[in-house]
């Protein structure tokens, strides 16, 4: 249960989020969409507790997110950054273990790490240095880390986790996330592939210039007018769902 109350955020004087309020509940897959610079990353970072918004509160299970200690939060909230990085030399397995390390007390983590790596399709690469991966492989490695970190019924905040993924891997990752949501997790992810959002998201938050301009089911949010007006291109809703027109 995540509650966002009147959240605004400023970079210097420039607003990036303006009085955003909404609620999203666990067991759902929530997509953040909107134009570039709309504030998705800013909101996701606040949701993941990485910044305290300039104004307003974000509550996770009733507690203000930014007040939860990093260690406690890490066990409930996993975050995938839009620009991940690594300054030393770790292998895929080691990188994913970083996520599992937050749950050290649980034990049996090697198994967990192995399972997640297999699940995300990096089994053959588990010993490769992260720096020698292709972009899509890196992206999956980082998602795998979040999966290893994430506990059931927790919050997965993912900033464009599907970028650089091929269609097959995209579906794989979406499938995994869907399954997590079904198991009771709250999955919040920023993404730009609207046809896919339309297919898989339970709830859509549409951010525009830092304002929450729409909030609801994909079908209710993705009206042809709004899509055309915002993106200046024709999305049509056909038998296959939303797709880009000619």
């Amino acid at each position: 249960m995540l509650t966002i109350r009147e959240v605004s955020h400023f970079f210097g004087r420039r607003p990036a989020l303006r009085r955003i309020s909404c609620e999203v509940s666990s067991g759902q897959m929530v997509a953040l969409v909107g134009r570039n610079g709309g504030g998705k990353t800013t909101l996701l970072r606040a949701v993941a507790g990485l910044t305290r918004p300039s104004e307003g509160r974000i509550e996770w299970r009733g507690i203000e997110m930014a007040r939860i200690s990093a260690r406690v939060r890490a066990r409930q909230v996993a975050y995938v950054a839009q620009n991940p990085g690594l300054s030393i030399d770790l292998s895929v397995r080691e990188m994913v273990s970083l996520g599992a390390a937050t749950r050290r007390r649980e034990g049996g983590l090697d198994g967990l790490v192995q399972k997640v790596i297999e699940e995300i399709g990096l089994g053959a690469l588990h010993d490769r240095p992260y720096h020698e991966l292709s972009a899509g492989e890196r992206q999956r490695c980082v998602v795998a880390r979040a999966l290893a970190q994430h506990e059931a019924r927790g919050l997965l905040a993912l900033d464009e986790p599907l970028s650089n993924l091929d269609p097959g891997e995209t579906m794989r990752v979406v499938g995994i996330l869907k399954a997590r949501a079904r198991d009771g997790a709250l999955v919040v992810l920023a993404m730009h592939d609207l046809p896919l959002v339309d297919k898989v998201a339970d709830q859509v938050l549409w951010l525009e210039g830092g304002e929450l301009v729409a909030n609801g089911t994909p079908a209710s949010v993705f009206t042809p007018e709004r899509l055309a007006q915002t993106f200046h291109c024709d999305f049509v809703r056909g038998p296959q769902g939303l797709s880009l027109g000619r």
Partner: protein
Amino acid sequence: MNGRRALAIAGLAALLLVGCAARLLVGHAGPDGALTFGLPSETIAPLRVGAIASAAAAGMCLGLSGLLLQALLRNPLAAPFILGLSAGAGLATTIAAWFSGAIAAIGLAWLANSLAGTVGALAVLAIVAALGRRSGVLDPLTLILAGTVISTICGALTLLVQSLMPPSTRGDSWTWFMGQVPEIPDWPLVWVAVALVALCAVVATRLGDELDAASTTDDEATSLGVSLGRLRIVLFTGAGALAAASVALCGPIAFVGFVAPHLARGLMGSRHGALAVASPLAGAAILVWADALRQGIDFGAGRLPIGVLTALLGGPVFLSIMRRSRVRTGGWSC
């Protein structure tokens, strides 16, 4: 911990032990100062043990301090003395000596020695920490700038004090800056240093995952449960205290703290949990071996200063290992 890491740690430990044995057996037992090899006499043994203890303790401090600092600053150029610790210690020692007459008079002669160095190093640490913040959190780049500046200022002040000395004694006083391995160490200090290394190594091993996580971006590290602010304070304090202890023990021997972490990384990869053991071992091995070797080298001016040996011995070894291991330092961002 995988096999390679265990092997590397065992290898470094063995190297250190053989180095200790070498230092114990090699010496100048004859009255003519000739080189001898064998178990030392009862009078001599404590001296060699003292030197081994000093070198090993200081080497461990330096190796671990360097590792913590390179992790803290995410910069491969970082070394224990970048934060101005040796400069602070040098300044405090020099000032204390300057006033040693006055200090001795009030019955605090011990202040003039190792304690002054420690106090100086820790004072600099506090100043750098105060200056190295940005929006409340220790910030690597700001720390680097503040540390280098404060370090240079302390160095300058030391020069200032030195320039007040008679020229005939100036040369001597420089020998302090070359570092030394006391054969009659301040034993409590040795124990403090060893305890500090043990403490910091345990902490760093336990924080191993956090240190690994901290080598990602700030956001990722935070979301992985690292309180960067707190971790940086821990790293900073630990690295500072270790560097201060090494300075108090052996004076400034900067090179070891730079080389040991890179060496350990070249041997066993980048995981901090294991490096927290390997890096101090590497530091100690370098320093003990250097001290052992310099017993046998005499160009007619007595033993070489330890700093000369660490550089002449550690430098080439380091370069060759780095070249062979094709510097597995992956993402060091430079």
